[in-house]
């Protein structure tokens, strides 16, 4: 048994280690050490908790068993999961944090003595508010993440689900949560507590269903942020520094990522949250593109162009992830490099389904991270590059975003691929991207469309180069 003061110091230390864990991610070299700091912080926090409670009994054994069961499941998932499934894995993990927060809040409500919060029916007002907020945000994180998971996994359609009066319904539910917390504080009645949790689960579902597939980077970041605020709420209830610090870190981290993602799409956070983008409304304004000529080619033509280039920029997008084409792509790049062609990769902030999605996939295919560039760092290079190889990306390359103020994607930062001498565009059809906007690039003089599955096309190109 160690004193409360000493354990508070240890919790502070683990909080600092968590800060260092995030700090490590400022560069890939320091990142592994950062992750180690994170693990160390977690071990300290858990060990200190056991020693603070002291009193080792049979229940301690049970706790360890449950800990190991959960740990084994987690480890198994971590080793088995393919890198392409990372977005849904992260969404799934967020849901677990949310639910854990709800469960801890329920225990604290049922047995407040254990946490020094008073007795049932007479819980300290501040603690009651804190645990209610923790439980409500946790419940929203849980059900919202489940919906995000189902959408990313493809079990649920990625298209937005909207109905009339949706925002009014959400608003009413939102207000009811606050009212229920208010009544709970006045009456200390269990019924208010349970109803508050129930409708929080409901609003989590309602908030995420209207948001479409390509807005998922924002949603995942937002849920990341929520899981942090839920943890912080519980941290206040338990008066635990490690939890408060971590909650604040995670909360602001998720908020920053959401901001970066929104900026990458030039959309306000609220327009994403209100949802419905890319639904029938924006497609309906089709300006008859009266069958402009499109130049299309095959793997042989593409191989010829690439072989005769001296510099190539690869622009990967979600389509590459779907087709699992990253390994084939790296092979193609290796072949090009053997022919002394300079190759780099250009990654748009919102390419893929989560922040950094493309970078992870390229890293998985053994692409060195110093060949992969962000939008701002590479955009000027397109003008003096021979070939841009667009694989699975669409909206993020559309020049319309720079020229047509009427377009829904106007103002979105895009990669200037059209400035290259020639553009190779691997795509299955001419269909518009997520935003429902026709890509002007398809009809340009210097564009050659390669209609095929991304993986198969890349493999064929490799064969033709050799």
């Amino acid at each position: 048994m160690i004193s409360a003061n000493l354990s508070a110091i240890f919790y502070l230390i683990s909080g600092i280690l968590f800060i260092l864990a995030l700090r490590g991610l400022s560069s890939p070299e320091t990142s592994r050490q950062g992750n180690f700091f994170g693990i160390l912080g977690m071990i300290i926090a858990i060990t200190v908790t056991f020693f603070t409670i002291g009193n080792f009994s049979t229940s301690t054994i049970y706790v360890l068993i449950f800990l190991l069961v959960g740990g084994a499941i987690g480890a198994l998932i971590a080793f088995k999961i393919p890198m392409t499934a990372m977005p849904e894995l992260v969404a799934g993990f967020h849901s677990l944090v949310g639910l854990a927060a709800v469960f801890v809040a329920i225990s604290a409500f049922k047995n407040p003595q254990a946490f020094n919060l008073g007795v049932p029916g007479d819980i300290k007002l501040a603690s009651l508010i804190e645990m209610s907020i923790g439980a409500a945000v946790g419940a929203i994180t849980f059900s919202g993440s489940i919906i995000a998971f189902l959408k990313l996994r493809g079990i649920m359609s990625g298209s937005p689900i909207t109905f009339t009066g949706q925002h009014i319904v959400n608003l009413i539910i939102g207000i009811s949560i606050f009212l229920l917390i208010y009544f709970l504080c006045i009456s200390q009645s269990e019924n208010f507590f349970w109803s508050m949790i129930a409708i929080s689960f409901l609003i989590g579902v309602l908030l995420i269903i209207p948001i479409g597939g390509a807005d998922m980077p924002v949603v995942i970041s937002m849920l990341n942020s929520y899981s942090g605020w839920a943890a912080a709420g519980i941290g206040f209830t338990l008066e635990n520094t490690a939890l408060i610090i971590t909650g604040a870190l995670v909360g602001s981290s998720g908020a920053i990522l959401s901001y970066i993602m929104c900026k990458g799409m030039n959309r306000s956070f609220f327009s994403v949250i209100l949802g419905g983008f890319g639904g029938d409304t924006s497609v309906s304004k089709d300006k008859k593109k009266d069958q402009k000529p499109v130049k299309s080619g095959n793997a042989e033509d593409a191989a010829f162009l690439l072989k005769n280039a001296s510099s190539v920029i690869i622009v990967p997008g979600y389509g590459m992830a779907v087709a699992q084409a990253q390994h084939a792509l790296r092979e193609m790049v290796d072949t090009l490099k053997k022919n002394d062609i300079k190759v780099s990769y250009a990654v748009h902030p919102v390419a893929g389904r989560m922040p950094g999605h493309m970078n992870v996939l390229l890293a998985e295919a053994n692409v060195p991270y110093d060949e992969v560039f962000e939008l701002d760092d590479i955009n000027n290079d397109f003008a003096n590059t021979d070939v841009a190889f667009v694989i699975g990306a669409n909206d993020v390359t559309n020049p319309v975003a720079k020229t047509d103020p009427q377009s829904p994607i106007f103002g979105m930062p895009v990669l200037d691929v059209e400035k290259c001498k020639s553009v190779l565009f691997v795509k299955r059809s001419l269909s518009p991207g997520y935003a429902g906007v026709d890509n002007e690039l398809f009809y340009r003089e210097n564009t050659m469309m390669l209609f095929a599955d991304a993986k198969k096309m890349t493999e064929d190109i490799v064969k033709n180069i050799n």
Partner: protein
Amino acid sequence: MEIDPFIFRFSIFILAIFVGYYVVWSVTPSLHTPLMSVTNAISSVIIVGAIIAALAGSSENIFEMSNIFGFLAIVLAAVNIFGGFLVTQRMLQMYKKKKKK
């Protein structure tokens, strides 16, 4: 007049938000996916509350309702802790520099 301890915790909270703000802006965009998985792992430090909840009360009756929720929360948080850190490790291992020839 004494200051309510809540204010101290609140100060820590606000300062930590600022620390988080500056630290996260310095994270390189190519590591944003590991950032999400690691923040996910560390937010599972909520297991601290779960352990307290699970071990509360008399040792004769360890499966009171509040204990059960504690145990359930332990499992969920443990999945996240192990899963989150290990998958982050797996991802970070893949980030390699160009080989010097």
